[in-house]
């Protein structure tokens, strides 16, 4: 630590997040390293260190000979101000070295609202924002994560995107860069051409995008020999895949401070609004034996007192009972808590929860998504009110006292009756809970309402988002209908609006991003910094209409800005699902019957989904 840094740290909040030094952090001898990698998480240390993907890629890259991968997080604005005042560029936590001197800078994009932080971090590093202005071959800036599938709004700022699961692909990318470094290559285009040959790598500058007069995309044409349809990468065998049993253990508090065990990737359910459920297909799972062994090793190495199972729908994991038995056998005598998020509202799941969560009986949550059965069918959210009621009854009889139900408003085909049905359903759950409660503490039911954001690569990718006024009208309607006994939480529609713009954005949004950043945008995912008016001002200044992206219905024959990206699931499938939604018709899950989404083409020949 330099004295400059020490002086700064004496004046900022939570300085521990800026110094590294945690147990498990990788320190390498620089004389053995020729490729320095900065893994940038465009949010705070506390959020970033809670991310499993970061730990996986950190471990994988540091296992490579000659490569040193270090962590970088977005400094909170007080720290940023101090760094700028002292002329201290963005540095990596392990070495304290400025990242502008590294060979590779990788960003992970987990949500659209982090884009302003990506720009801010590039600037803090002392690098030009635009890829075209970074003439030197190094550092190369690449971005991955779920937002990279439609990374177009960031296309002007990053040199390459990596699409899909990074375990194998990152090794190939880093090797390619290391090779270029060893050769003394200086031609950035040549390096990008080599990278574009790696399956999963998408170099946006190698695609010419033309627009129609009405502003929609006319064509997207590959150049430089890049693939016409860059296809996402997946790992086919999760059992043999790297898992970070030995990883960095933060000394200071982070959001999720525990071992996270990933049960499976993909989801057998085809909720039509859900992007994660589509982009992570096909469904693959780890075996319970491998999971139990990895859990044991990860707990031994970390000393953590909690382990959490992670997947999009834990109840759908085959072998959940066996897995929990194996985990409890290790955890119980050691006082280690097992937590099971993302359970479905069914009896089996509830009994399991009873068995593993003996201590705290408070926070029960359900995702109902819509108030009426008709709308739940339209979005293919396969849960019936009887199931909710049944779980609610058993849970409150079993001593639970609070229940939170998640809903969305603004879903395609929604009517005012559907909105009002949210109040009705919540009320019926409250009545039931009150009658059955044994906790003696009174019951508390919360209806948490989010505004629907149409996302790329879903059945609803063509849909118009409700306008802000329409959302506010629906919230008012709901407030008027909602009995006082129920807490109503709702999300500010303006955030969802911006999310919708970027989720389906194209390259022209680069100017908006840069303008908003120049006007001070950062930490847009944080209420204390998000400023809707600043963004609207930025749209006005650069002459772009945000409604074109968010509240306009996109034509089914339109070339979408992400049309050239292949995520496995086919547009024709998404379209079929969209039309089924209009008929309020459900589709079976992958176990009942394959609906031919196309994701199985990513698997090796002969391998079936969810085996």
């Amino acid at each position: 630590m330099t004295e400059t840094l020490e002086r700064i740290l004496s004046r900022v909040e939570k300085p521990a997040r800026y110094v590294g030094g945690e147990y498990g952090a990788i320190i390498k001898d620089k004389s053995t390293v020729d490729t320095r990698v900065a893994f940038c998480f465009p949010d705070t240390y506390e959020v970033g260190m809670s991310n499993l993907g970061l730990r996986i890629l950190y471990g994988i890259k540091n296992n490579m000979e000659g490569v040193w991968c270090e962590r970088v997080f977005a400094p909170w604005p007080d720290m940023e101000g101090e760094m700028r005042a002292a002329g201290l560029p963005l540095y990596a936590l392990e070495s304290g070295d400025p990242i502008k001197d590294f060979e590779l800078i990788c960003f992970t994009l987990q949500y659209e609202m982090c884009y302003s932080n990506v720009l801010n971090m590039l600037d803090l590093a002392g690098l030009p924002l635009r890829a075209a202005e970074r003439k030197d071959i190094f550092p190369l800036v690449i971005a991955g994560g779920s937002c990279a599938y439609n990374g177009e709004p960031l296309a002007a700022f990053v040199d390459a995107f990596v699409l899909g699961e990074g375990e194998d692909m990152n090794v190939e990318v880093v090797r390619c860069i290391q090779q270029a470094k060893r050769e003394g290559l200086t031609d950035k285009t040549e390096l990008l051409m080599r990278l574009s040959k790696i399956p999963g790598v998408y170099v946006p500058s190698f695609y010419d995008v033309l627009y129609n007069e009405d502003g929609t995309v006319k064509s997207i044409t590959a150049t430089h020999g890049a693939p016409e349809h860059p296809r996402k990468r997946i790992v086919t065998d999760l059992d043999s895949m790297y898992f970070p049993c030995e990883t960095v253990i933060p000394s200071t508090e982070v959001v999720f401070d525990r071992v996270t065990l990933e049960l499976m990737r993909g989801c057998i359910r085809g909720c039509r609004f859900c992007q994660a459920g589509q982009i992570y297909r096909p469904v693959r799972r780890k075996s319970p034996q491998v999971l139990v062994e990895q859990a044991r090793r990860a707990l031994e190495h970390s000393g953590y007192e909690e382990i959490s199972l992670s997947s999009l729908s834990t109840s759908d994991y085959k072998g959940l009972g066996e897995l929990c038995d194996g985990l409890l056998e290790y955890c119980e005598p050691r006082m280690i808590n097992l937590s099971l998020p993302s359970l479905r509202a069914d009896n089996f799941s509830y009994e399991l929860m009873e068995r593993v969560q003996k201590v705290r009986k408070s926070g029960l949550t359900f995702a109902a998504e819509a108030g009426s059965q008709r709308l739940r069918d339209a979005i293919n959210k396969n849960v019936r009110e009887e199931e909710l009621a049944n779980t609610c009854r058993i849970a409150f009889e079993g001593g639970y006292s609070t229940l939170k139900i998640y809903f969305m408003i603004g879903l395609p085909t929604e009517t005012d009756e559907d909105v009002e049905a949210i109040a009705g359903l919540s009320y019926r759950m409250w009545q039931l809970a009150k009658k059955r409660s044994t906790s003696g503490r009174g019951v508390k039911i919360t209806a948490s309402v989010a505004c629907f954001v149409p996302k790329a690569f879903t059945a609803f990718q063509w849909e118009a988002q409700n306008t802000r006024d329409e959302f506010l009208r629906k919230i008012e309607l709901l407030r008027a209908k909602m009995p006082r006994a129920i807490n109503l939480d709702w999300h500010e529609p303006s955030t969802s609006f911006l999310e919708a713009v970027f989720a389906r954005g194209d390259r022209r949004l680069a100017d908006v991003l840069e303008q908003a950043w120049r006007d001070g945008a950062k930490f847009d995912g944080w209420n204390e910094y998000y400023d809707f008016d600043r963004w609207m001002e930025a749209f006005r200044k650069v002459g772009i209409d945000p409604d074109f992206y968010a509240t306009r219905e996109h034509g089914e024959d339109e070339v979408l800005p992400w049309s050239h990206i292949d995520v496995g699931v086919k547009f024709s499938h998404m379209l079929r699902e969209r039309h089924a939604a209009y008929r309020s018709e459900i589709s079976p899950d992958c176990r009942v019957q394959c609906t031919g989404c196309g994701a199985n083409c990513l698997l090796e020949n002969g391998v079936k989904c969810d085996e």
Partner: protein
Amino acid sequence: MSELRLIFQKVGTAKYLSQLDVMRTFTRAFMRAGFPLKFSQGFNPHPRISVAHPLPVGVEGYAELVDFDTKDDMGPDALERLASVLPQDIKAVKLYTPQSSVKEITFADYTLEFIYDSGVPDGILETFSAQNIPVMKKSKGGVKESNLRDAFTEIREESRDGRSVVLLARLDARNAPINPRYFADALASAGKAPDFARYARRRFLRADGEAFE
């Protein structure tokens, strides 16, 4: 079951850890080292671990104490096992069965390093020889004036170079120990505000002035 005491150092990057961070870190490090920790009874069992006299964030400690209970024998090489699973700048110094209670801690020696970018001004030590050294002390109840002179029994210069001076102060450790940064505040009131300061707790002492262990 036995009670154990660890003497540890918390320096460098680890000086930024709060009291809660230190507790969390030791709980996990003890688990990693395979220490058979004893847990409290009740609905939310937690290991019995206590850190004596929390250090303020930003202050180094060279002989800090943590007491904890175990239910079995620790096994051989307990100190080495622990040392190998600690964060970079937390160092395990000594592990033993304590003979005295932390209540016997009466004083704590601190080094106070004041850095002046344009040279150390005269009269640093003299600032602390006045009978009344008013400082504005922040507490939960608000800000109130307090006499810094009551917080220490001895102060002397330990070393100096062109741009910094290091003082050694013996602070009363019993009731509401004072944050060492009030020494810099006192210098600021005397028109000698340092550009930067570093603080470290060197050792705990008993009432008779002997080192506490």
